[in-house]
Structure formats: structure tokens, C-alpha cells
């Protein structure tokens, strides 16, 4: 018969948050079994833009983002691998007076939650970004935002968790989960895990798992359409965004320029996100208007992936409303990369201490208690 394991915590999902939770739980001395349906970090964690960004976030996410920002500085050392984190700064451009007013409003409000931004007028922006093609009326600079390599972070967290004694199972999609006594049973092919706690960090599969405990919520798939160029002369020394979110660009030291181009499409059969050529061409056009200096480079790759979106664009993070011992962590709505290391620690806090010092009340799953399937859901929109 199959394998039977008893453990303290079963984690369904193998993205950065899930693996970071495994690390934090092991640090606290709890046993962990993590089940990932493919490879750790290969889902949304690995295919996103790679922005390590506090600016532009919904302010309710700032406590999480602040906690994460402190972790990013020491992440490569913690993981024992270079995650290519650079605190290159993030500049968000205002292309109209209305945009500028919005940036100023945000800047005031953000200061109160620990994010200090510098407003730049037209001339200051020109001095900072002399290669800018677009006419801008101003911008907001967040000097300690930055970028990292999303492809390596998830796998590195998984390896650290493994070194610390977590039982990490890849290619192990969860087939069922239910309450058993005061704990849980989670099954996969040939495997049955009994655990005191269950973490739902299953990304695209989180909705199904939540629904199994009577907490169906309106999660929709979100496929970012990503584009990267060949290496070229390095000159884009800040991560760039715009009000409206339709342009976001960064350049790595090797010279490749990475930018977004709208949405990809979901291949339901394979559960994979795929790039969309029309959107790639539109993304190219929009980005060239902002940074004409990349016009001579070649696009060498496009890709997509499947992230999860909540209608209010903030995640679900916190204890289950129906089942004690179940913790939810999903729906990062296109901006989970920067906060993921902190999300992992919060998950561990909730299990080890029953609470967390980081403000997460706004992310409670109970905000959807009156939602029923069939209600119209918002279309996707991601601000960068």
C-alpha cells in the first residue's frame, strides 16, 4: 500500500511562500511535509516580472511588504544562493496631471505605513532618466525597491527547507484533503499525510482546496504575458512603472531587458499559461514609447504562467473561518513576489504562536463569506 506519514504541518503548494513557510516552521522545530504538483518555484513564483517592489502596492499590504523588504537584504546569504537581488530603485511615471495627483496622494498615505517616496518634477525625471521617450509630468521614486531573479528564488527556498529537514515532495499533486479529528489528512497518489495543521498555498489550486473546507472564494486565473530581449548595453538603471500599470520594465546587469505585455492565455488542458502574440506586439509598442532606446534590440523569448487573482486585488492570508488549524495563503493577484518571504514567516507565526505581529486582518477569507459562485467577477488589472 501507499506511504503514510504523520507530521505537524502539511503544506499544499510549493511556491516561494509555501517553501518559506516550511523553512520558518522547521526553524521553530515543527515537522513539515510539503506537496507540490510540479517543481517547487515553477509556478507563478518563477514566471513573474521579478519586481521587488513596495511602491504601488495596496497600502493594506505594506506591513507585509515592509517585513519582506528587511528579509530581501539577507536572502542570498540565508539561502546560500545568489538570488540576484538589486536595490536599484523603482520609478513610477505620471503621464498626466491626474496621474501626478494620484502619485502625490499615494505618497502621503504611504509615508504613514512606512514607505518613504520622493516626488520628482519633470526636470528631475529627465535628469534621472535622460533616455525617457515619453512626455512625463512627474514621477515617484522609491529608492529601495528593486528586482531579483524569480526563477531561482523558489527552488532555493525549497532546497533550504530540505536541508533543514522538511519533507519536500515534488510531482505530488494533492488529490484530497479533509478534517480528521483535530487535524487533517491530505492525500496524493501513493501517499497519505496526517497533520495537525494544513496550509493552503496551492496557487491556482487554492480555490479547490478552500472549497473542500466550505470556503469557496472568487479566485480567477491571471496570466502575465512576459517578454525579454537579448543582452544589450546596460542603461535602464531603475525599475520602471507607469500610472495605469500598462508598462513595466527592468534591465538586469547582463543586459537583458524584461517587460510586460498584457495578458497571456490559459491552456486549461495542461494548466499552463502561454504568451499571446498580439499582446506581445502591443506590449512592445507601449514599452518603446517609454524607452525608445531599446528599439534596436531583439526579443528572444516570451512566456507566461498562472497566478491567482482576487476581485479586490489583495491576497487571502490568514486562518480558515471554518476549520481551526487550516491556514490560507493565496490569491496574490500578480504581486506576490516581493512579499512571499514574509508570507512564509506569517504562516509559521500563525501556526507556532496562533498569531502574527504583522497586520493581516484585511486579508481574511471571511470577507468573501457572502459571495456565491456565479456572481460576476472583476476583470483582471494589475498595477506595477
Amino acid at each position, binding site marked *: 500500500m501507499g506511504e503514510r506519514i504523520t507530521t505537524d504541518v502539511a503544506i499544499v503548494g510549493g511556491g516561494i511562500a509555501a517553501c518559506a513557510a516550511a523553512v520558518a516552521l522547521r526553524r521553530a522545530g515543527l515537522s513539515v511535509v510539503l506537496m507540490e504538483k510540479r*517543481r517547487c518555484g*515553477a509556478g507563478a513564483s*518563477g514566471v513573474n516580472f521579478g519586481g521587488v517592489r513596495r511602491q504601488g502596492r495596496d497600502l493594506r499590504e505594506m506591513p507585509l511588504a515592509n517585513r519582506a523588504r528587511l528579509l530581501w537584504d539577507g536572502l542570498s546569504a540565508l539561502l546560500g*544562493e545568489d538570488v540576484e537581488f538589486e536595490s536599484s530603485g523603482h520609478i513610477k511615471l505620471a503621464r498626466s496631471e491626474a496621474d501626478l495627483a494620484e502619485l502625490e496622494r499615494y505618497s502621503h498615505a504611504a509615508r504613514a505605513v512606512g514607505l518613504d517616496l520622493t516626488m520628482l518634477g519633470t526636470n528631475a525625471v529627465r535628469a534621472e532618466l535622460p533616455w525617457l521617450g515619453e512626455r512625463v509630468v512627474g514621477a515617484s521614486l522609491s529608492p529601495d525597491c528593486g528586482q531579483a531573479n524569480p*526563477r*531561482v528564488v523558489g*527552488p*532555493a527556498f525549497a*532546497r533550504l527547507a*530540505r536541508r533543514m529537514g522538511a519533507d519536500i515532495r515534488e510531482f505530488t499533486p494533492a488529490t484530497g484533503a479533509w478534517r480528521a479529528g483535530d487535524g487533517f489528512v491530505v492525500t496524493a497518489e501513493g501517499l497519505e499525510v496526517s497533520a495537525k495543521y494544513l496550509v493552503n498555498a496551492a496557487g491556482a489550486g487554492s480555490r479547490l482546496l478552500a472549497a473542500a473546507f466550505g470556503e469557496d472564494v472568487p479566485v480567477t486565473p491571471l496570466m502575465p504575458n512576459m517578454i525579454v*530581449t*537579448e*543582452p544589450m548595453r546596460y542603461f535602464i538603471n531603475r525599475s520602471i512603472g507607469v500610472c495605469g500599470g500598462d508598462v513595466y520594465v527592468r534591465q538586469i546587469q*547582463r543586459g537583458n531587458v524584461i517587460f510586460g505585455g498584457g495578458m497571456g*492565455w490559459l491552456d486549461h488542458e495542461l494548466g499552463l499559461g*502561454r*504568451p*499571446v*502574440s*498580439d499582446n*506581445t*506586439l502591443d506590449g*512592445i*509598442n507601449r514599452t*518603446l514609447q517609454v524607452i525608445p532606446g*531599446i*528599439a*534596436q*534590440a*531583439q*526579443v*528572444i*523569448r*516570451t*512566456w507566461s504562467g498562472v497566478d491567482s487573482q482576487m476581485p479586490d486585488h489583495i491576497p487571502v492570508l490568514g486562518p480558515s473561518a471554518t476549520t481551526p488549524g487550516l491556514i490560507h495563503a493565496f490569491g496574490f493577484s500578480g504581486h506576490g513576489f516581493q512579499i512571499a518571504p514574509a508570507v512564509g514567516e506569517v504562516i509559521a507565526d500563525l501556526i507556532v504562536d496562533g498569531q502574527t505581529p504583522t497586520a493581516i486582518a484585511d486579508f481574511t477569507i471571511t470577507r468573501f463569506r457572502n459571495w456565491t459562485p456565479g456572481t460576476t467577477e472583476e476583470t483582471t488589472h494589475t498595477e506595477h
Partner: protein
Amino acid sequence: MSRIVVIGAGPAGLRTVECLAEAGLRPILIDESRRPGGQIYRQPPNGVPDAARLYGFEASKATALHALLARLGDRVEYRPDTLVWAIEGKRLSLLTGGNQHSFIEADALVLTTGAMDRILPFPGWTLPGVYTLGAAQIALKSQGVAIGRRVALVGAGPLLPLVTHQYRKAGAELVLSLDVTGLAPKLVLAGAMLANPKTVAKGLFYLARNALGGVPQRFGAKSLQAIGDGRVEGLVWQDNAGRSHTIACDAIGVSFGLRSEIQLADLAGCAMAFDPLTRQWQPERSPEGRSSVAGVYLAGDGAVIGGADVAELAGPRTALTVLADLGHKVDPARLAHLDSALARQRRFRVALEHAYPFPAALLDTLDDAEILCRCEGITVGTLRAAVRGRDVTEINRLKALTRIGMGRCQGRVCGQAAAELLARERAVEVEAVGRLRSNPPVKPVPLQAPLAASEDAA
């Protein structure tokens, strides 16, 4: 009227559209190059007055193929200088002239995308002056140019004696023709004579002529090294007895068999299967030419390595399948003839692969410092460190963590070698490490202001 799109104007694609046009369809033939012929029959500039001089035995085949589209005229919609850079379902993303984007929705697709040289790294292989054998041939046939003044040719397939013969005939100074696979495996060909006497005779002819022409032909090598200060100045190799040889040269044409171009088949959703004979992943293809996807067909080297003669048979065979699937009547006698010719060719092909076995020994002595990824200079040592320290067991994970396969060539040059090396590190069969997933664009696409994309009316 069904819109049938054929991608690739080499021998397979040309014979495919010929067959479809003759049946009254008007296929669309899309090709990346400006002139038809593919690579093996790459056209010389301005029409060459003396094709026989450059092509040798193949001159009449080349001429017939080059003239094919002109002969068919308006019965084929020919779109040269057009790159198919992405496929979504059967909707093709096209880039014409390097700057005109458009899209076309096909009812049926025939992928005749051909092949490229198979490359294995060796010390010095990124020095200026090292080219593939295919490149050496293309330089000669399409440009009348040799890759150097003192040329060494190194190979592990029938392309080697052919290019040696062509270079010698054209008056190039050839200092070496080295078949790394050795002489002994060629004895297999004696048995294959029955399957394909003409081709074997031709091969033997090349060997004989090359020897008579004074070209030093050598058989068997365990290691290779290109040496020189900033450019090729010599080739060092170790023969199968362990003796070291050095020869002065200023150019090396070297590759080890062929590798199918399968990226478009991958994007079209075709299932792939590992072929142990050629040690590579290829799209699943029925003998009739169907892929695993309804309405997507495959023919020629892009589906299974077979060479130009097979491509000229597989093209019409697949075209007849397309016609039959569209409800046309096809001549069973013609089908039977093609099928038996293809079967004969297949038997010969198997023998040929055994006559030129994969030169695994060349990978055994690679130093950590050797460059594996040519595009970005990533070393064999980086691959080994990823396996030993970062739990890498599969090629896409290797790509994500080391950048091998992330350069401009998207793994065309390094992918197969990376898989072989990864398999060695893991002590598993190369099939077990998987294959690199294709991403659009299948070749680099310029950023500069794409003109407004246009859609082909259905």
C-alpha cells in the same frame, strides 16, 4: 477552400506544395529565406552558371527544386523572407522583411522545418574560424567561398565526405577530413548496400575520390581541440589509439550529425517522443505524416532526420495524407510506391546511423572550464555545479538556474550537449532529463516599432 499552410521551403516543403498544387489546392508556402531550397540546396547568389561544379552529384536535384516554384507559378502562394515566430492553435504569427507583422489562420499546417547541425562542445570551439560542417557547405554552395584558406573538416556523419568532396572539387586547400566515429562502423554499410546501393556507392565514391585527391582522411578521434590566439590556427586531436596529432589550419568545419528543428511543432502542441537512434526528441509522426494534433502534419528532417532524398519523398507522401483527410481521392498506387521507397530509405537511414555512431567519447573529457553555452559563455562547470549543489535533474530546471538555453539561440546549439552532459552527471539515460520547452518567438524578433499588424481575412 481549405487554407493549407506549409512552413519551410526546403526539399520536403517544395515537394509538398507541388503535390498539393497538382491536386488543385492553392497552398501557402512560408519560408524564412529569400530564396527556396532550404539549407542542403541553399541557392547561390544571382544564379550560378556552373552549378555542377559546386553541387557535384546533387546538381540536377538542386536545379529541379529551385525551378519548382517558378514552374508552379500562381498555383502556390509563396511568402519568402517570412518568419513564423509563434503558433497559437493554428494561428501563425508572421514577420516579413524583418519589420512587417501579420497573422494567418490555417486550416491545416504542414511543418517542413528542416534540421540544423548537431553540435558538441570541445576546447576552443568558440574561436573565430570554427564553423559547423553545414556552414562550410553553405559558404561554398551559396557564396562560392571557403571558410578559410587551410580548412580542416571534422564530422560524424555522411555530410563529412560530401563536404570534403565539394571543397576539394572547388579547389579549396583541405588539410584534413577527420571522421571521429572511426572506420570500423562503416563496415555496417556493406550490409546496407542492398537497401540503397546508389547512395552507398556515392559515399564510397567520395571517400575514394577524396583519398585520390590527396585529402588526408582520418578515422577515429577521442578528443578534439581548436588552438590559436584569438582565431583558429590549428587542430589537435587524439586518435582512438591515444596518439596526439596536430595540424595547422585557419578554419575548422565541424559538427556531428543533424538535429531536427522542432520548435514550431512544439508550439503547435505536437506530442514529442525520444528517438534513441538519433538521441533526440522529435515530434510523434505517423508513417502517413500526421502529428498528434488534428490538422498538423510533418515531413522531412524537421520531423525525423532522413536527408534530402527522403524529404523529397516524405513531402508528397504527407501531402497525399492531407488530401485524403480533406476528402480527396488519392492514387493508391502512388501511395504504395512512396511508402515502399520511404521504407527502403528508412532501413538505410538506420544503417547510416550505425555507421556513424554518436561520438560520446568527446563528452567524456570535457573540463569544467569549457564553454557549453556559446551565446553567453556559460561553462560545463556551471552545469556540473548545478547538478551537484542545486538538485538539478531536468533540463528546464537547469535552464532556469544556470541560463543555459536562455541565450539568443534558445538552445539550438547547446541544448543537446547540455542534455547529454546533464544525463552523464546524473548517471541516467539522456531521455530521462527531458527536453527544452519552446517559447515564442522561435527566432529573435526585432523590437523596433512593428508596423500595425494585419490579419489575414478568413
